């Protein structure tokens, strides 16, 4: 199970993992990504959706999204 799906996201941009007791500071777009992860969207699907929503080239978003997922992996939130 992807641990990221367990995260509780609140309006103050805090993500809380209720079993581990860990809290994470996220920004708006990170919250959007985590919401999509919780909906079982793949990285490619997230890339498509966000590049349609945000003012950013797909190439740059690809780098930033990869970086974000690397960090989720380091935190043990995705495998």
């Amino acid at each position, binding site marked *: 199970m992807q641990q990221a799906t367990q995260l509780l996201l609140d309006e103050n941009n*805090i*993500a809380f993992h209720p079993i581990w007791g*860990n*809290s*994470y*500071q*996220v*920004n*708006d*777009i*990170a919250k*959007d*990504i*985590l919401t999509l992860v919780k909906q079982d969207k793949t990285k490619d699907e997230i890339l498509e959706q966000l590049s349609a*929503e*945000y*003012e*950013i080239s797909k190439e*740059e*978003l690809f780098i*930033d*999204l990869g*970086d*974000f997922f*690397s*960090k*989720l992996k*380091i*935190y043990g939130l995705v495998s």
Partner: protein
Amino acid sequence: MSKKIYQKPTINYINFAMASKYGSPLQTQKVRTEIDGVQISELTEKFGSPIFVFSEKTIEEKYHALHNAFSSRYNDVEFSWSYKTNYLNEICKIFHKLGSTAEVVSEFEYQKARANGVEGKDIIFNGPYKPKADLKIAVQEGAKIHVDNLFELNDLEEIADELNVKIPVAIRINMDTGVYPAWSRFGFNFESGEAYDAIKRMYDGGKVYLVGLHSHIGTFMLDANPYYMATKAIMHLKAQVENDFNAEIAYIDLGGGFASKSNLKGIYQSADVIVPTPDAYAEAITNAIYEFNKSEKLPKLYLETGRHLIDEAGFLLTSVWGYKRFGDGKKGYILDAGVNVLYTSTWYNFNIELDKRYEGENEPSMLNGPLCMNIDIIEEHIMLPPLDRGSVITISPVGAYNYTQAMQFIRYKPAVVLIDKDSNAKLIKEVDDLSTVNHKES
């Protein structure tokens, strides 16, 4: 429908131990948008990146502050610009215009000073290695020779014979000033009597005579008191030499080593707290001269301060080329300037400022240079917000030694810009190119 404004996605584990009475390191950003009224963006757009930038205004402020500290206490004081600290011609010329003579430690620096319009008599020739041919030119042009060792003395005696003159010289003295490690490599030791013996040897030879005494007790001195100790030793030796050899010591030279407001690695307090003021250095030296002078006439005082006068006037602008995520979670930024142009990054924690305020929380980051070398690290641990490709970072203070010790290694040496007192930015050194690197190579 218009698209939403993009921000890089960030997620940071909240470590509650990081919060303290000083606030959260997740929010703090140091921002610098201009240098002396010239926008950072204008500088990189016009002159490229990376570039060194120097502020004439800061040079003058630092010069006047230190000079006033000494001249308000002592009538006869002269600054001699330390060429090795920064020998960019335009920088040297600013110091010469302000009244500095030149202090050089090689034939190449000597030639540079002469080419910058400094007369031989206004050049102090220091250093442990002075080939005889260069020494001879310096003698012929009336430079102030500061003898480092007995081999140099032998060479000077030969030159005296060849030119049929008697040569006025100074000698460099080292002594115990309570500083560890003591600088004993240069000159002759005071406590052991080595310095006195060397002077006796000079007078026995009869071909050179002593007019000055010189010491340079260390670098980045965070205590002014050792200068009092050094001056005391020099004044004692002066009295002894004047008495025993009927010499007239016209000047003493206390060298340099005054610290800049850089943050030395491993030191907890900020430079603003621990670096002695110009007044503290001036008081230590001038008090000892007055206290231990035994002659009718006070000696002229020379100072060869480099770092203290130029370090804070120098900035390096470097741009983010890319970034990646390291295995430990740290974000690694690739910059277009690295340790090839920041020799002093080994010892100092630089002030690192961003070109604007960035959205997003800070995260543990590392600043790496462009070299394909694992050691190319400018800052190993720094909290930074998500930066963009092309973000410009200002690194300071880097005015002392970084340009002169910059390596032509992997990348070309960068251009240098001087901002004058009217906020005009002008190129004073172009970026190197292949012809620079291949010059004189077959």
